[in-house]
């Protein structure tokens, strides 16, 4: 087997699970996830000659995955949908940092979080997907091609937006419940 084939197999075997989780973020449908995963593998193969080892293999493959997911969504003429599950890496950390309780009504909170994330712009969704992969700001900056402080500012703004939306929702709900009880 050629060097390229060996390198490809090694890279895919190492990064497979992380890339599959990116696919799961961008589609709820198993068939679409599989199509996206295959498309990522094809683009990984096509771009492998340009891999010089300047960045980590994981970061390099994330770039391929994100760029492919963007093209995949564009060609399918649909918005990038976002799916968050309880086993999403860094979700717990994110929820704790933002004082979002996942213990009480976990499913409901996740559904709300997913709904608000889906209302974000495509770029913000991509940043959230990378953030939920527990990547550092440095790695995210390397993947999207902007500076680290810029990533920090953008993620801070997204977190605030999500937090405000969820606080507003729970406030509205509690007002609604009080009104119902009267």
């Amino acid at each position, binding site marked *: 087997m050629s060097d390229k084939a060996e390198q*490809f197999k090694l890279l895919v075997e190492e990064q497979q699970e992380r890339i599959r989780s990116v696919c799961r973020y961008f589609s709820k449908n198993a068939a679409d996830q599989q199509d996206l995963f*295959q498309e990522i593998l094809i683009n990984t193969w096509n771009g492998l000659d340009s891999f010089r080892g300047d960045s980590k293999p994981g970061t390099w493959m994330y770039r391929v995955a994100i760029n492919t997911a963007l093209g995949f969504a564009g060609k399918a003429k649909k918005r990038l949908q976002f799916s968050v599950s309880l086993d999403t890496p860094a979700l717990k950390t994110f929820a704790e940092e933002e004082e979002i309780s996942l213990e009480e009504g976990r499913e409901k909170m996740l559904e709300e979080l997913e709904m608000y994330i889906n209302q974000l*712009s495509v770029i913000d969704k991509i940043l959230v997907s990378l953030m939920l992969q527990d990547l550092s700001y440095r790695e995210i900056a390397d993947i999207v091609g902007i500076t680290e402080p810029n990533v920090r500012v953008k993620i801070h703004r997204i977190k605030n937006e999500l937090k405000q939306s969820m606080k507003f929702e729970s406030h509205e709900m509690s007002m609604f419940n009080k009104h119902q009880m009267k």
Partner: protein
Amino acid sequence: MKTMNFKKENQSRNPIDLDSLVSELKKKDDRQKKTYRRFYIMLSVFVVFYALLLVVNPDPELTLSHRLAGLFYVIAFITGAWLFRREHRMMVSINYADPLLQVLKSAADRYRPFNKRFLPYLLVLLFINLGITLGGPRRYLPEQWTDDQKILMIQVVYWGIMVISAVIGYLLWRVRYRPLWLALNQMKDELEGK
């Protein structure tokens, strides 16, 4: 998006058969190389054939203007082939491993309607125009017309067709690619914080 025809897994968590995937990818690479090799061989045959028929053909009925017309056609084919090669190279050099912002910038540039990289195509149109003006079509125009009138008529018809084609091309771009181009620019601006 069309995916390759290798064995699909039913569940997204199932491991993929990497050996069959690699073999399919290699076949695809080979097919692509063969397709382009065939295209260039066909074009070379065409150029040689046209050059022999219209430029170096010893037939005494072939006037100098016919030979010059043939030469301009051959130059147009060669220039067209060179531009096609450049375009193809640019398309295959799209690297999905580049940072997102860079990919968005180059995609937005590719889908821009009026792009300076299209300027050399004007040369091809000009060479074809010279070929048509010096070549055969003049004999189909009314005999009582002067040479100047014939040339003027050829220019009006030729550039008229080109302008209509350009307008149709622009309208097709508006329907097919403008929404994508706008979305790409919007995402690019958002990432750049504009």
